[in-house]
């Protein structure tokens, strides 16, 4: 993962001009899909993802039901044209793993006990990818869950941190990920100060890891504010538009 490419410039800024602890531009739109019970479009730099939530709804087959709570399902999927080289449709091993850890990042906040035997389905489609799609997907899904009216203990916010040119930085681009020394996606529930997703690959010391985790927590908090804002805007809008 080491490289000869300089990823941090003389002025301490990264190749796209960001400071080490700076996020890429973020755009959040709530309720963009009409068929879904909840949905959210999320942009993070060049990443474009869209999440939809269906449910609580009936779960087939029956033996997959849980008598005590709703079953949460999560499907992360990349559009064939979302990456440089056209991707063959259908799940690969990477997307199966991402679907699993994303579900485990979100399930802790969903009050599944309210809906025994039901399914809550979360679908994330990656329309364009530039490193960070899994965290973008979790951010979108969390907002979509709220938009669907699913009772939650808090919003989940996610971001990756990494190490490039020996330095811990927030929110890697694809170029930084490729030539960097470490990548660590993190999701957390700001309200309860709980980390619900943590993955890492690369090679770092214990101290670097701790610094990276702190930076990720700070990043998640900033994203959390944007998620809240987007939801408030949507729901104050609608309050004026229509009486529920």
């Amino acid at each position, binding site marked *: 993962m080491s490289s000869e490419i300089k990823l941090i410039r003389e002025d301490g800024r990264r190749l796209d001009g960001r400071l080490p602890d700076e996020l890429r531009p973020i755009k959040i739109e709530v309720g963009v*899909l*009409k*068929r*879904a019970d909840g*949905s959210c479009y999320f942009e993070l730099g*060049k990443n*474009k993802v*869209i*999440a*939809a939530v*269906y449910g609580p*709804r009936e779960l087939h087959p029956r033996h997959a039901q849980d008598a005590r709570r709703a079953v949460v399902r999560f*499907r992360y*999927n990349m*559009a*064939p*044209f*979302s*990456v*440089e*080289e*056209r991707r063959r*449709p*259908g*799940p690969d091993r990477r997307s199966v793993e991402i679907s699993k850890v994303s579900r485990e990042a979100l399930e802790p906040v969903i009050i599944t006990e309210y809906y025994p035997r039901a399914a809550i*389905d979360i*679908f*994330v*489609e990656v*329309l*364009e*990818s530039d490193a960070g799609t899994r965290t973008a997907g979790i951010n979108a899904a969390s907002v979509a869950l709220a938009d669907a009216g699913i009772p939650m203990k808090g919003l989940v916010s996610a971001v990756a941190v990494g190490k490039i040119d020996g330095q811990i930085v927030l929110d890697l681009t694809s170029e930084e990920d490729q030539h960097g020394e470490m990548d660590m996606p993190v999701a957390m529930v700001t309200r309860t100060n709980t980390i619900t997703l943590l993955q890492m690959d690369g090679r770092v010391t214990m101290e670097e890891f701790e610094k990276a985790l702190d930076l990720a927590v700070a990043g998640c908090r900033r994203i959390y504010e944007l998620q809240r804002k987007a939801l408030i805007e949507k729901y104050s809008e609608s309050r004026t538009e229509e009486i529920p």
Partner: protein
Amino acid sequence: MSEVLDEIRKDYLFNLVRKGRRIDGRAFKDFRELRVKTNVISKAEGSAWVELGQTEVLVGVKLQPGEPYPDTPDKGVMITNAELVPLASPTFEPGPPDENGIELARVVDRGIRESGAIDLEKLCIEEGEKVWIIFIDVHVLNHDGNLMDASALGAIASLMTAKIPCERYGLGDDEPLPVRDSPVSVTAVDIAGEILIDPNLYEESAASCRLTVISNADGSISAMQKGGIGGLSPEKTKDAVKMCVESAKEIRDKVLRGLKPT
């Protein structure tokens, strides 16, 4: 229960149509509001986000060098796929395309292929060895009826604005994709004996039969596909085809005119 609702809704639609009206106020021959935004995915060589009423479809076109088919060694290859991802409708399931997804992809493909819209011979890099492969991927985002027309429109709009990424593969400067026609798909349904253009989801499920006609700039027809478990008399079929071809002209003028790579 939902079956009863289905019946009630169907009766309602039939009664409306018999009075010459549609559920959303359109005339029988009118499309819903239509918006096409191209170049929305920078990773793709061409792309178009189509909104047809509440139906939303994103089409991406990618080009890569690859091997030609043995029987057409001097022609590019075109591959069309459609994914009815479960995000787009409560009735779509994860998994490989079912018969609806396959039919959608194949009809979109035929419309473009048979019209000759793409000059595949210009996509030969080295005869018998290397040609451009065009991947047209239809990604349905919200299904509110008439995926066929939205997808076909997204496909041709993506192609008209696509570039051949020669540079990335060390094959000279990027070039526009050689597109020489603009096939437009128009779908009609039969409800209560009347022909309605661009059915929304309710109309689609109430219709006994669907007819898709893809026609070109000169008014010629390149593809047709009947769907659904009803039928039409030969006379009514001819009328429907005429309506579809007429309607295609309007759509072409409104949406496709002047599209080209940026």
